[in-house]
């Protein structure tokens, strides 16, 4: 591994100053950055360890109804916070569906928001990648790309954003709080990650040296608590990135949907809000037909970027499923297999189970 300087600032101001050095990178848990350094994907000269910065590891439920999550709150701490799990259940479910217990114990809130793509051509330094080395091209195009983007991609980059956590954050209108040389500012999470366009190397709106200090859920984001789910299709039952995922949050008004929020994961280089689908659902009855229309609308703009057309249909189906499950109500507790189709009961209420023997259902 390349030799680097390691500094551990005592305050945010010191951190910002240290990060002004050329080749500096912020280090929190390192669950993503250290892997990339080992693979030579990133080669920072200075690591600014922010894990000891004061005041960034708290969860604050404020009197105005908002919740501020410090940048250094560990994924496991956040997911298991009883108030978070009650007010924002999809957030807890998304967190617990990601990575492994060990990684969740280490990984931080800001680190999750800032995690890099899993595109194999980004992590393979022998391949051309406009994100890793601007102007070299994109070997994912025309290559191995079953997992790549179907929305918002460009001819320069077809990668996806892999975060689970960011998907319900986007659905809940979360805001990213930033400190920087130019002072503090806030950016809606939905606008925080950039689509690739002509500059896939610019992954977020962060300016050089800026530091994410918190993620805030606005007042009212807990109004969806009774009807929200995160659902994630993956190629093994646990410890896998999503093929496609969806966060759905509904506010119900009797038998009608008062307000719907839908975000999709692993379909684009950012968590993808499906606003047209949300509009369709506002005031509608929660029927299979409505859900199918919403799913069509959510993926209306989707096009394959390679050998991945199946993801479009899969995304439609997961939207329908997440809507169905959300309408049925948030489960009392996060399922043992969070966000998994094997934890849900999509048809139990609507279809009669026909099993020829007890053996089919009792040996799980």
């Amino acid at each position, binding site marked *: *591994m390349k030799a680097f300087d390691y500094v551990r600032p005592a305050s945010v101001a010191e951190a910002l100053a240290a990060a002004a050095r050329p080749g500096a990178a912020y280090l929190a848990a390192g669950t993503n950055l250290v892997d990339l350094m080992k693979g030579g994907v990133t080669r920072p000269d200075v690591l600014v360890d922010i894990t000891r910065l004061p005041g960034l590891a708290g969860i604050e439920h404020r009197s105005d109804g908002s919740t501020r999550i410090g940048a250094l709150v560990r994924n496991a701490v956040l997911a298991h916070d009883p108030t978070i799990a009650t007010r924002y259940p999809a957030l807890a479910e998304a967190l617990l569906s990601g990575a492994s217990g060990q990684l969740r114990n280490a990984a931080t809130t800001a680190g999750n928001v800032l995690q890099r793509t899993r595109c194999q051509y980004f992590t393979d330094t022998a391949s051309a990648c406009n994100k890793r080395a601007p102007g070299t091209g994109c070997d994912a195009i025309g290559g191995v790309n079953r997992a790549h983007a179907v929305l918002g991609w460009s001819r320069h980059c077809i990668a996806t954003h892999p975060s689970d956590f960011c998907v319900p954050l986007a659905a809940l209108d979360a805001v990213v709080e930033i400190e920087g040389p130019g002072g503090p500012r806030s950016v809606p999470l939905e606008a925080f990650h950039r689509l690739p366009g002509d500059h896939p190397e610019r992954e977020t709106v962060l300016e050089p040296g800026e530091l994410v200090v918190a993620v805030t859920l606005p007042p009212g984001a807990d109004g969806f608590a009774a009807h929200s789910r995160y659902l994630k299709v993956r190629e093994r039952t646990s*410890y896998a990135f999503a093929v496609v995922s969806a966060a759905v949050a509904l506010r119900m008004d009797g038998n009608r949907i008062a307000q719907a929020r839908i975000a999709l994961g692993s379909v684009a280089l950012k968590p993808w809000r499906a606003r047209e689908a949300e509009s369709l659902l506002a005031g509608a009855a929660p029927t299979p037909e409505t859900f199918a229309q919403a799913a069509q609308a959510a993926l209306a703009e989707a096009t394959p970027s390679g050998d991945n057309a199946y993801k479009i249909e899969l995304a439609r189906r997961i939207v329908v499923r997440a809507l169905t499950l959300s309408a049925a109500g948030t489960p009392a507790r996060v399922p043992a297999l969070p966000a998994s189709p094997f934890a849900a009961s999509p048809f139990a209420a609507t279809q009669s*189970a026909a099993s020829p023997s007890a053996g089919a259902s009792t040996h799980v």
Partner: protein
Amino acid sequence: MSERQRHGASIGQPLTRRDGPDKVTGAARYSADFKPEGLVHAVMAVSAIARGRVTHLDVAAAEAHPGVIAVMTPGNAPKLAKSPDLKDNPFAFRLDLLQNDGVRYANQPIAVVIGQTLEAATEGAALLAPRYEAEPVSVALGAGEVFTPETIGAGSPTSEGSGDVAAGMAAAEARIEASYDTAAQYHNALEPHSSVAQWDGDRLTLHTPTQALWIAKGRLAGLFGIPPENIHVICHYLGGGFGSKGFIAAPQILGIMAAKFVGRPVKLVTRREQMFGPVGHRAATRQTLKLGATRDGTLTALDHHTLTLTSRHDDFVEPSGILSRHLYAAGAISTTHAVSRADIGTPIFMRAPGEASGSVAVESALDELALELDLDPLEIRLRNYAEVEPITHRPFSSKALRECYAQGATRFGWASRPRQPRQMRDADGLLVGWGLGTATYPAGMMQGEARATIRADGTALIETAAQDMGQGAWTVLAQIGADGLGLPVDRVDLRIGDSNLPNGGLAGGSTGTATSGTAVHNATQAAIAELAALAVADRASPLYGAGNAGVTAADGRLARRDDPARSESFSEILSRVGKACVEAKGQGQGDPASRKTYAMHAHGAVYAEVKVDPDLGQIRVTRLVGAFAAGRIVNPHLVRSQYYGGMIWGVSLALHEHAVLDPRSGRVMNGNLAEYHIPVNADVPSMEAILVEEHDPHVNPLGIKGVGELGITGTAGAIANAVWHATGIRVRDIPITLDKLLG
């Protein structure tokens, strides 16, 4: 026959691993845990291209990096005594050891950087920034010239059959023809290939993971031009071999060369992503099955053709068709293989090489035929039960497969399976499917030797250069030794994993316990005979005059067979003649006459239940019941563990594992354990392994068949069939991933 007579006092007992405490406390030291005085670290640089040559390495930049000691390249690497490309025996696989600047596959070693620290050597390797002259590559199955290999697998005939397949197909009342693809799988044992090497003149001490200490010693002696006795290989513990460590691989030898190059002890550990190339893999296959049957399901023809890949520079051919020579009684059988070359590392043995990939195709095809005939999958298998080995017509030395089918079916509840697909749902509405696959693996033996020493203090020592790669040799060889000597197992010391011990053969091909166990057994019998000779010739002994054959060993004593009351302890016999011990050697190998007369295979039946989300296609295996018959079971606890491991790999084969190569570059694009999926705990279902009793008087004196590879066969086919039963969709492209079920 009593249980004790049948199994022995130790054999057949479910002892926990003797090495367990050392492993869980970390006291067990694996190869890379050794740190000789003055140890330095070596890191391989590997090729980014799959074909061509290296034109430039920035050696100066690497050498200038603080802590870098030396850079070993084709320009300065020690010249070997003979070319690593020389195939002076069929198992001398060609190795890339910096003897030239050529590149034959991606991730091929192209240089080694030696540093004071791992970090320095790692950065040194990165600074080499190789430049290449690249040539176009081809890695696709069937691309380029397809030819018939001379042999397949470990030297088996490329084609074998019996009867007239065309006539059998013509006479059939139902036929299916289908092609099944299986994916390339790369060896990724938990412990990567490593070496800690130390030279003293022309003597080498080597800690390296190997499944065959003496084979490794022989290969190294040839390459370095030194006598085998100058080489001491130590491998007490092996963190998984599965075929990748049967023959020493290039990274291990590069560590030894690096130690010679810098004149210091060197440690080299293969990085995880470097496992995808130089240490072997199971090649992709496309298998075409043509089956014909009469209305009642009797096979009139079975044609199993395999197309696979090998490397451009060497030959190993995945023998997927072999199992069709032994498994089902068809009126006519044809098994053929074809291969094309690709710019890939040479494929190699991987757990049930041939049988694993072949089984999923054959078991799928048989179910497709059963569907045509509206037969239950179990029924069609019983209808074609081979009473004798189909092609050779030899009787089986033992075969309790019928009992496996029956016991597994009962335990699983198979009788209530609906014939048609998409008939079962669970309480959550998930599709449920049940499938069956037959497990089969040959009961082979290799050659090994062991030494047994009976000591005057009433204990004993068993020694053989066998290896424990997790299967339990530390435990079962002591059990076999204990019974052979008539001692409790806790009075038997065992030494294995050291090449200075008698040749223990190869822990591979499911032959380890059969071979080294037989050697141990024979050594104990010879040692007891030595001891008996001391007693029966001694007038002072109560055994005087009994003759060697007239005594038996039990509970640390020799007793007269005709009068067990007349006995004497081992200690008494040795003390009286003033000897500290007696020792004797024994050989383990198959009896050629029996092996000519009988077909020898282990069998099993695996029943699988899967659940599939009807809309999202996500698949989960929820239940596996395997019933296996493999002769005498030395340790049921460890054998179940082997079966579970095999069955889990069957889950991996069916649903997860597959290397993805970019056809343009030949690079493995998922060469890490985040993207190269194997099952995690949540993918491992409730499993049962039923040990079906099987007595085999022919396979070897102890009646032992191997169990290491049996469990992976049958399982993947059972899962593929269960997925069809759940969904009505027959996926012929393995692994079965959710995109293939979206419809």
